[in-house]
């Protein structure tokens, strides 16, 4: 058992965890942030994806202790029902989700993708970059459309800011 402290969605949190406790478990069980999902046990599905210090991380592959001192963003920290992030909005507008289980991971992955590769992503890039996220419902068609739209909208935002 050890003590960990980190910033999650801008708030400092701490908790006592076993050495083997995964970051995904800490987020879901200790912090009750249940938007981060667990869909597999081999780090293949991406349902658990969060950002740690600005980078996309599968929270089931990281120990809570490894995130000690870090800054974690989960789906709950991205936007609120009243004020959606452009990627969240694009998922809704393009019907990029059905059961919603993969969705938080998909959105976190999409934000990371746009942050890393810049706006105006093409379909091939998006499909390739989604390699670490599985969706069983949507057939990806509308997820790809949603990310494309969001990446274009974010380009507009950047342009307007220039």
């Amino acid at each position: 058992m050890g003590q960990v402290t980190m910033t999650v969605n801008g708030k400092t949190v701490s908790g006592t965890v076993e050495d083997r406790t995964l970051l995904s478990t800490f987020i879901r069980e200790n912090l009750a942030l249940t938007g981060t999902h667990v869909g597999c046990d081999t780090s293949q599905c991406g349902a658990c994806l969060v950002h740690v210090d600005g980078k996309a991380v599968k929270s089931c592959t990281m120990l809570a202790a490894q995130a000690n001192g870090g800054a974690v963003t989960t789906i709950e920290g991205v936007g609120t029902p009243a004020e959606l992030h452009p990627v969240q909005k694009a998922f809704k507008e393009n019907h990029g989700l059905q059961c919603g289980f993969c969705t938080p991971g998909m959105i976190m992955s999409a934000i990371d993708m746009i942050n890393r590769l810049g706006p105006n992503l093409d379909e091939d890039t998006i499909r390739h970059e989604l390699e670490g996220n599985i969706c069983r419902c949507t057939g990806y068609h509308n997820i790809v459309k949603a990310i494309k739209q969001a990446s274009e909208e974010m380009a507009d935002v950047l342009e307007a800011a220039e």
Partner: protein
Amino acid sequence: MTSEGIGARVLRKEDKRFITGNGNYTDDVKLPRMGYAAFVRSPHAHAKVRSIKTDAALAMPGVDAVLNGHQLVADGIGNIICGWMIHSKDGSPMNMGQWRALESETVRFVGQAVAVVVADTLQQAMDAAEAVEVDYEELPVIVDSRDALKEGAPQLHPEAPGNLIFDWEIGEEAATNAAFDSAKTIVSMDIDNNRLVPNPMEPRSAVASFDAAEEHYTLYTTSQNPHVARLVLSAFYNVAPEHKLRVIAPDVGGGFGSKIYIYPEEIACLWASKRVGRPVKWTSDRTEAFLTDAHGRDHHSTAEMALDENNRITGLRVNTLANLGAYMSLFSSSVPTYLYATLLSGQYNIPNIYANVKTVYTNTTPVDAYRGAGRPEATYVIERMMETAARQIGMDPADFRRLNFVTEFPHQTPVIMCYDAGDYDASLNAAMKAIDYAGFASRRAQSEANGKLRGIGMSCYIEACGIAPSQAVGSLGAGVGLWESAEVRVNPVGTIEVLTGSHSHGQGHETTFSQLIAERFGLPTDNVAIVHGDTDKVQFGMGTYGSRSGAVGMSAIVKALDKVEDKAKRIAAHLMEASEGDIEIENGELKVAGTDKKLSFTEIALAAYTAHNLPEGMEPGLKESAFYDPTNFTFPAGTHICEVEIDPDTGKVEVVNFVAADDFGTIINPMIVEGQVHGGLVQGIGQALLENAAYDEDGQLLSASYMDYTMPRADDVPSFKLETTVTECPGNPLGMKGCGEAGAIGSPPAVINAITDALGVEDFAMPASPSRVWQALQQKGMKEAAE
């Protein structure tokens, strides 16, 4: 109607909670004093359980109890049942082996639960489960269904001699044989349908609690049909009488059939929650999901088709061997029989059909309905046969299909089904146009110039949804009625709650069902709440599977809305001193036709509840319910065309073009329907190219994780072109047919027809993985070189 009525692409009401991480899935539920369950599972596919030692586990920190099957049976918990009785052709009932939620004598598949540990934390429960010592005596194993009926095969269940569950037939054998005797051409094939694992992304989960004072249980669970779960848990598993058991299926992360059934884990959690006196949670990990969620498909068939001199089909003969796994799951018997062989006529006029289906036990995970359930297997048989027949007689596959299409309705097939409406030419034409069928030859030449092989393949599927009517399915062996219920509650301020027995686990009912109210009353969908998934709120329902929620679930809502509308109109007529027949409802107002007199829906609702001035003898309130029992199945149909490009150096198959032209009857929300098609197509393409549940000869599931079971990912599939043609279903008030499974039904044969076209081979077994395609090309090259 308003802009949110039938046919509008209304954005989903439910999305906000999902995109912001505010969904509420079963594993998100936490109850005070909750303990965690971990199951002790068999590592062997077939073994006697000699002893279960629990002392070490019980002594571990935080452990409340280690419970086994002896205690379960002593407490009177019933065996797990199959709810659809099938009789063999000799009239004998199916041979159902005994299945206990926790097995204490003989385990029959890897992963079968033997005991359950409850502890303070999940880690403690898992550690203790590891410490339970089970002594097994290994027994010989059957994995492949083709070995099950062999003489000398190991016997799995005493109730099923020779491992045969039933030997069933449909159609006229003698007449079909006669058609073959006089055939000009006979086409025959061996056709396999590979075993799949449904894999909804949310693993199954259960949170059970017992209130000792009230002797009342509550179960949160990942169910597609919470009322059916309660019925079965109560009537057959003796957990508690129905009024002492509440089942809640909150947000559910996909089902695809696998969450219809009531599994050992839910039963064990309920039972354990009383035994240990605290709420108990269990959530499957992905490995457990692979081992214990009911699998799909796994058929071996031989099929023969007879043609006359005009290339018209005169007969179809099919023999199918279906692997039901180690135990009979809830609807397992209906899948390879009434959901399969009744669709073998496809879109075609086939005067004589005979099918024989044998089902067997093997030491594998139980098999039951998975998206499409029987209909993908039937479509695969008939559409592979159509393609092969066309090639054999040298006809264009589209022309051959068209020549044999059913064109007049109603059409009675020789295998029970009576097709009520359709236009198969229309969907075939739409698909051919959308994919530019005529331009294929030049695209193929282009691919060849680039060193690639290109092929095109189609599939003209038909399926049956909204399985019904209750009386008919009852006579065929169903243990339940297949109607649906609905209740429409108008609140005093005019907002509306619709309680439905359907369950949404991705289908978007909260939106689609609200659109119906928008259509009827002109109210915004925001004024409507859809309530589902809780047996305490909704009186009863049959749940969501078999693409039934539109055709059956919404029809029940329509019936309840008819009654609400009728009462609202009577109140309006009374208040405005008009005759009832003159009242019209439009844009949320009730108007007297031809006058400017009107009252808002809210005013009528309020009047119904204040009850100060109602027509003589009328009861206060505005709330109506209805049960709807369909008169027939519905028959969605369409054409899928797939174009593939194969890299001969790697064997990789790329789907470069895919068109689906579907006739789903009336469509409420095209956006949601398209999403259903996309998802189904990728599951079907996944089956054809990637997915396969493979066992080794000892019965170990080799593909038990996402490392070994190839789930389709975004870059394995293309974007799709979708077309819609519409013939309304005459059997229900909205003319709906259902759209949830069509994608998974139509696509596998289209993909394989395209691959065999590209490779120039007659057949290719699913899944067409790169290594197998590459091998086939090598063999063919060697064969051609040798010739």
